């Protein structure tokens, strides 16, 4: 387990990570520093009908799972590491397999429907290719906190229900070779799941569903305890703090970009 906490601003992204890092700017500084003052929404909103920050926390925020109460502004090491059995998938896992369209009548912002979405995660996978169900029969949460996949994970639809279903089911991170852009964006914006990239092409072929793995975000490392192999991960970069905060809104509030809800 990593002992160093992940300092949000200190991670410098490599070029290929910058390519996929949601908020990475070319100068690698935290993205807000490159935003011009007139884009500060806090100022903008104070002159609009929206009122100034409310001090009360939202009543229910299923999406803000990661906002554990903490006096420190540094990332808790236990949040930056995930451990447990992994679920392994191949290339081009599209959104229809992650959450089939018939379940899109569920509205993710409604707490009970959010939970239901989670229970249907990966129900679209062909059972011939994936004999172990992601969620055991009768269960509503997954036993696999880590998903390992090939290239172009999350391709297809823009449905935000896809990362939401995975997060609601209880997964914490996907380790994939590459991501479709809307899925990556949605994962970061919702803060539901970490979309981590691995260096190794074909990593998924060296892992088997059920292998016990550890993901160390701070060390950019994946350890497969069952096979004894270790793999290098690409740094999550500036997307990390956004997911850590609980998504784009929480991050924007935390950094003063927008005000909290008006009531």
């Amino acid at each position: 387990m990593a002992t160093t906490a992940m300092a949000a601003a200190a991670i410098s992204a490599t070029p290929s990570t910058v390519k996929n890092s949601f908020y990475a700017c070319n100068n690698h500084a935290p993205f807000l520093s490159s935003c011009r003052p007139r884009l500060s929404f806090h100022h903008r909103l104070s002159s609009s009908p929206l009122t100034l920050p409310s001090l009360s926390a939202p009543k229910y925020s299923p999406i803000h799972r990661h906002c554990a109460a903490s006096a420190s502004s540094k990332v808790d090491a236990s949040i930056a590491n995930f451990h447990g059995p992994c679920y392994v998938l191949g290339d081009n896992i599209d959104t229809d397999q992650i959450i089939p369209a018939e379940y899109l009548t569920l509205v993710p912002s409604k707490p009970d429907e959010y939970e239901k979405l989670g229970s249907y995660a990966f129900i679209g996978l062909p059972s011939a290719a994936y004999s172990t169900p992601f969620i055991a029969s009768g269960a509503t949460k997954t036993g696999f906190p880590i998903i390992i996949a090939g290239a172009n994970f999350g391709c297809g639809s823009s449905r935000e229900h896809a990362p939401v279903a995975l997060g609601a089911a209880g997964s914490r991170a996907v380790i994939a070779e590459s991501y479709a852009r809307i899925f990556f964006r949605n994962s970061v914006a919702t803060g539901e799941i970490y979309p981590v990239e691995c260096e190794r092409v074909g990593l998924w072929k060296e892992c088997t569903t059920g292998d016990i793995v550890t993901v160390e975000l701070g060390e950019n490392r994946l350890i497969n305890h069952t096979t004894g192999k270790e793999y290098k991960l690409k740094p999550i970069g500036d997307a990390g703090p956004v997911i850590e905060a609980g998504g784009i809104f929480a991050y924007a509030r935390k950094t003063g970009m927008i005000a909290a809800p008006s009531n």
Partner: protein
Amino acid sequence: MASPVMASNPAIFGAKKEFGFAPCSSPSIMRHRLPRRALNKVLAVVAPARSPGAPSASGSVKHAMTMTEKILARVSEKSHLEPGENVWVNVDVLMTHDVGGPGTIGIFKKEFGQNARVWDHEKIVIIPDHYIFTSDERANRNVDILRDFCLEQNIKYFYDIKGLSNFKANPDYKGVCHIALAQEGHCRPGEVLLGTDSHTCNAGAFGQFATGIGNTDAGFVMGTGKLLLKVPPTLRFVLDGEMPNYLLAKDLILQIIGEITVAGATYKSMEFVGSTIQGLNMEERMTLCNMAVEAGGKNGVVPADEVTFKYLEDKTSENYEPVYSDDNARFIGEYRIDVSKVEPLVAKPHSPDNRALARECKDVKIDRVYIGSCTGGKTEDFLAAAKVFLASGKKVKVPTFLVPATQKVWMDIYSLPVPGSGGKTCSQIFEEAGCDTPTSPSCGACLGGPRDTYARMNEPQICVSTTNRNFPGRMGHKEGQIYLASPYTAASSALTGYVADPRDFLM
């Protein structure tokens, strides 16, 4: 099932170098040399390296920009920007529908407050279209959620439906969002259109930047009118040659996706130019841009021209300012396609890049044909299908489902005369051919939907479809097999009961 994924090109931040033509396997792409007149002096080069730590855009080095870069520069109020930059853009139009809308509204209210007002009640277009003609209670409730919000916020453009038993009794109702946006004049050159739907890229046909986003991003836009976007590098596709009478834009985009794979354009803009493109009408251009997302593309774009302006004449009175790629703009890659060499294609199960010649799939017996969706359910698509049925004069051998994208398309099917038919309408030709009666306009079974959706695939069958995706379970049943095709190919297949080549009917 996995299709080969091209290695991503991290060289965008690497040293400037020539990017040779990508390897190709089909004779129609890029084997020939550049024409002497050289349509443009575009160099397919990679963007120069930016040293980390250097201040961004000192302004002293300005260079040419592509269409997409120009649009994003304008809406982010920058004189210049480069691929890879993250910029805050002012959004011109935000679209949402019954699947993305309720979630977006929930996030908007939670994050901005129960009494918050949207940033601009005239710039949000709310279009119920996905799960409309169903008895699914949640689906019906979701349309109610949209209505309540539109009333509360005084949303100017809400294409409502209340009476599900007769769509014609709902004058406001349009149907499929992307086609409704075009028909109602919401797509304008040079603007930024964002929507909670992956096929929002459809609107790139109008020379604007249009892309799909999720509920959270949309909720953010709803409150602020802005979004942080990463500027994509542009892949240029030059299509030249006269369009053969058996080909449609669907064949062209299937050709391209088959060439570059479902991740070939990830995080990139796809720009479509060339003499063939100039000869396409707006609906065909939409079909092309519609499937940019199937190649992983962030957006697709076609330069606006007289065809665009003519289409927009009776649809919008808003001012707009088209932009065009500079002559020496830099593209991350360029592909040239000799359209005269393209043949009718299908995308076999289970991926849009699983390209095959229709004529090589003639042994595939099919169970049904589906003609519909934003990709293949527009007026031009139905006219094309009618042309094949007319040429044949015979009846279809399998159930053939017709799902017009919008009310207007439905009306066109019942009123427009089909050329060469002696005044018959599409509807008459479809009836004579034994197709199903054209149904209520909506997204229908393109994405399966609730169980009672018309034409949903509830058994493991083989379907030829004019839709946009064929991943497992896309139209309903997980073991269903979907062959994506043009309306010509779909109609031809309906007539033979097998995957068919439209040249058998049109030549």
